[in-house]
């Protein structure tokens, strides 16, 4: 009875969580809303890296970058605080559209295609594309020499269009801005074409690489705003114009070494004085500066794993009972659920929950989507473990209970399930360990847990190896005690059998 109560309260908790996640606020003026709230939520991808938005090498729990400065300047003008919302770069626009944050600032180029979907502020930076090659390269002196060569760039960036427009270039698409330069340095590709700010931060300090030719192309970065937030766009345009006149923008760009003649088209010439931290500093920062962030990521990993496992064990039990003991429509639905969830990748299920459901009007918060995604997936596996447990209880147990006048429900609750759960316990513990590691998949839906923290930190510092070892140790430290527990339970079970 106690166990049943616990399951019921879990299910109720789940429903409350869901309704909270799905609840959406009524429409009101976006500027008003931001002012009332006291902060503006701006979306960006810290994994995208420097010099846009990245963890400070001195204090990795703090984000820095020219766009952080820009967002803060804008917030200051609005009289509010700026809060960053972490999101994969590819999904910034979809997430903005579903209302996860107010604006997106992350080197997003103003293109006609994007203008169909969202509003753009006035441009805040004019970027050009810089071709980078290896130091000893002599054949490639500009983009005209790229025919027949391997050239890397970012997915969805303007540089990709330029490269594909040349024809005959073997274009390699990367999802992060570090990797193309790494591959170039070790000779996997011959050249990289990327936005100048990226080249200035990652390629310029690298002694193995050099610029090839003058920057090409020209594009504009703009702040992305939801289609319906016209007033917000107007407010942002006014603020940008003001920042431009006061020289604040130029000061920011000079700090980040991003100032060049191209920008003259936008701004007046005013000198600034601050200097920005470079990649060399990131490389040398002592490891312990990263610990607070990694520990926080680990905490989120534990939280999401425990919560989804609780959902998985209770939903799994319901599924098994429906599958084994309910009438046809329900029993076959439960079977279908189990087969479907076991037969499709968890990653796809997460994408559908987080990015797919908004298409039909259901918008889940990242936490809710991670919790439901992992929990509903593992419920299918727990259901099968319970079923095996129930099947292994001898038939005579049910017969004995029935012969004493117990109803089927009573016999299940008091006789069959307690024995089945005992048999299922080691399997469930093992699944918990697996779920724990699978929780790293929720980093694709904007959850900054341990794995995501790792990729963000290493993208700006390039310290994939050291940080990777630390993260692996953290995962192990969390999962090994569970393995020990599983082993002990298994032995205990053997002892009583």
């Amino acid at each position, binding site marked *: 009875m106690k166990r049943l109560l616990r399951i019921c309260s879990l299910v109720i908790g789940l429903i409350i969580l869901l309704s909270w996640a799905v609840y959406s606020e009524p429409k009101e003026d976006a500027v008003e809303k931001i002012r009332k709230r006291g902060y503006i939520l701006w979306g960006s991808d810290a994994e995208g890296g420097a010099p846009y938005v990245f963890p400070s090498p001195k204090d990795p729990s703090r984000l820095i970058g020219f766009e952080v400065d820009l967002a803060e300047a804008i917030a200051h003008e609005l009289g509010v605080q700026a809060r960053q919302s972490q999101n994969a770069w590819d999904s910034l626009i979809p997430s903005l559209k579903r209302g996860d944050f107010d604006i997106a600032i992350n080197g997003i180029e103003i293109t006609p295609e994007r203008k169909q979907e969202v509003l753009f502020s006035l441009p805040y930076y004019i970027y050009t594309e810089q071709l980078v090659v290896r130091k000893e390269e002599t054949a490639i002196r500009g983009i005209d020499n790229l025919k027949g060569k391997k050239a890397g760039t970012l997915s969805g960036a303007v540089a990709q269009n330029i490269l594909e427009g040349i024809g005959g270039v073997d274009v390699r698409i990367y999802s992060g801005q570090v990797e193309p330069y790494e591959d170039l340095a070790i000779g996997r590709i011959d050249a990289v074409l990327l936005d100048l700010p990226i080249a200035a931060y990652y390629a310029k300090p690298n002694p193995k690489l050099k610029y090839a030719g003058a920057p090409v192309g020209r594009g504009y970065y703009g702040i992305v705003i939801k289609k319906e937030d016209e007033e917000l766009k107007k407010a942002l345009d006014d603020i940008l114009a003001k920042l431009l006149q006061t020289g604040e923008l130029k000061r920011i760009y000079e700090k980040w070494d991003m100032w060049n003649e191209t920008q003259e088209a936008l701004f007046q010439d005013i000198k600034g004085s601050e200097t920005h931290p470079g990649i060399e500093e990131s490389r040398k920062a002592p490891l312990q500066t990263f610990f607070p962030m990694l520990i926080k990521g680990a905490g989120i990993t534990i939280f999401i794993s425990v919560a989804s496992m609780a959902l998985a064990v209770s939903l799994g039990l319901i599924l098994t009972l429906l599958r084994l003991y309910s009438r046809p429509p329900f029993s076959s639905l439960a079977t279908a659920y189990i087969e479907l969830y076991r037969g499709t990748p968890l990653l796809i299920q997460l994408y559908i929950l987080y990015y797919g459901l908004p298409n039909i009007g259901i918008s889940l918060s990242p936490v809710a989507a991670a919790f439901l995604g992992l929990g509903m997936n593992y419920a299918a596996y727990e259901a099968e473990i319970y079923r095996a447990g129930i099947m292994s209880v001898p038939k*005579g147990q049910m*017969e*004995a209970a029935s*012969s*004493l*006048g117990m109803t089927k429900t009573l016999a299940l609750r*008091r006789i069959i399930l*307690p*024995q089945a759960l005992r048999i299922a316990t080691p399997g469930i513990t093992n699944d918990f360990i697996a779920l724990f590691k699978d929780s790293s998949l929720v980093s694709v839906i904007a959850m900054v847990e341990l794995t995501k923290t790792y990729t963000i930190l290493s993208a700006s510092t390039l310290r994939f190896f050291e940080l990777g070892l630390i993260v692996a140790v953290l995962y192990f430290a969390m999962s090994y005690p569970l393995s020990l527990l599983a082993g002990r339970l298994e032995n205990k079970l053997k002892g009583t059998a």
Partner: protein
Amino acid sequence: MIKFAGVSKYFNNGARVLKDISLDINAGEVVVVCGPSGAGKSTLLKTINKLEHIDSGEIIVDGFSLQDSKTNLTMLRAEIGMVFQHFNLYPHKTAIQNIMLAPMKVKKLGKKEAREKAMSLLGRVGLSNKCDVFPSQLSGGEQQRVAIARSLAMEPKIMLFDEPTSSLDPELTSEVLDVMVSLAQSGMTMVVVTHEIGFACNVADRIVFMDNGEIVETGTPPDIFVNPQQERTREFMSRILHIPINNTPVEG
């Protein structure tokens, strides 16, 4: 008390396990069912409390038809105790918890009352000192006696026994049979599947011999053991009594 009228049963694979069974068992009667393995004895026993359903015919227990949808099956089952070959005690509960569960949950007896009753039943089967022990720590004979006490806790009018001693070592058999004998002497209606000839001869009012899903022959213990009328009965008896088939019996 128990009436079979033309009962037949098939399994899913089409095999017929009970063939047109008709049998009347009176209140207070002790009936022993015997016959070769696979004859359908267990199945017959389980139809009495509807652990197995039947395909045709009718079974009436204590005036209620099992085939009547108005019959309260749970109530009726509570009146019919059943003891199994493999005891089927709940392994996760102690001896006394095994006994107390059904009275508390089905008969809604208070915990104190259920406990007192369980203690007195454990005393009756000679296991007062084992009340807080788990089944895995009991010998087979002790487990079977707890199982009998568990059935008796529901105050049944009928007790069914399905080979209650056949998985026990010989020296443990008698402690279980003793309990059964005293139960028979107290006037309980009993249907017992067993090949314990001593028990059958001493206690049974009637022996039912089954083979191949049919009742081949019924009669008093001397009728069946000493002077069987049917060839199949005679063959079976000579095998379990280890005596050669000798003189031709009087044809019936």
